[in-house]
């Protein structure tokens, strides 16, 4: 009986935690965001505005407008960017900006702040500016 109670409590804790997290992570219904892509030498490769609705995610907008690549389960670059259960895809390529995960990665900045959330967990708000920048592992922020 004790084990059943503990198990139920654990499952309630799990479910309520995710409900609370999703409640605080809600996107705006519609708006416009700016996406900028910066390559390894610091040049702006692209900087455009995109309209979004409640159906869109940041990844959707990137996928529709750029050639993107994601990490597979072994952190190798793959063109198949399938949604991952519970967590976020790892972006490794946007057009010609390509990273290898070990030595380089794509940093995401939301409104000039380094994002610690993966691309699937970032919420969209009207007027947001996203910068996707090539970074060397261990390099300055």
């Amino acid at each position: 009986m004790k084990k059943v109670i503990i198990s139920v409590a654990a499952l309630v804790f799990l479910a309520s935690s995710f409900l609370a997290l999703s409640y605080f992570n809600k996107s705006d219904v519609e708006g416009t965001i700016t996406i900028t892509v910066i390559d390894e030498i610091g040049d702006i490769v692209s900087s455009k505005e995109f309209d979004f609705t409640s159906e869109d995610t940041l990844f959707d907008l990137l996928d529709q407008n750029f050639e993107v690549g994601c990490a597979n389960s072994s952190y190798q670059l793959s063109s198949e960017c399938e949604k991952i259960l519970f967590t976020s895809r790892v972006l490794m390529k946007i057009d010609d900006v390509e990273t290898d995960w070990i030595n380089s990665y794509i940093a995401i900045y939301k409104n000039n702040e380094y994002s610690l959330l993966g691309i699937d967990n970032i919420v969209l708000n009207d007027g947001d500016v996203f910068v996707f920048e090539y970074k060397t592992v261990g390099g300055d922020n």
Partner: protein
Amino acid sequence: MDTKKMMMISLSIAILFTQEQLLVFLPNVQLTVLLIIVFVSVYSFKESIILITGYVLLDSLYMGGLNPFYLVPMMLAWYLIPISYHTIMRRTTNEVKLALFAFVFGFVYGWMFIPFRMMQLGINELWPYLVADIPFEIIMATTGLLTVLWIYKPLYNLMNEVVITKNLVATKSYK
């Protein structure tokens, strides 16, 4: 250490590694916490350390080319299980106590990576990373708690039987 024990530790590492790769598509959902707690309960402290070292080296080699930013925190975090088991847990086999330990360990495991990831990515602020990591820690903690609560005892009994039987066979054949 006798040859049979070495064989058992090698097979334990193989089981740990295989189940982790099989469940790699579900982030932080794995049986590693459960299995390491079972192995630590059956093996001595020294044998447990050898097992964890072998497992972490193999896992890091396969997943990240022995990247020190993964290898070191992973090694330190998994070492906490035998250290805690032989000290604060007082070698208990009570599945409720061990399940609660597995729950706490889910969070501690995540925290162990934070300073190393901050160094690797050049992040200076702690709390945003801490917050971002919470969902993964919750998944690992809950998985650890449930699996240890329900599967620890049967696995422990089975492993214990294997070890005792092997010891008996070895003793009899020696005599």
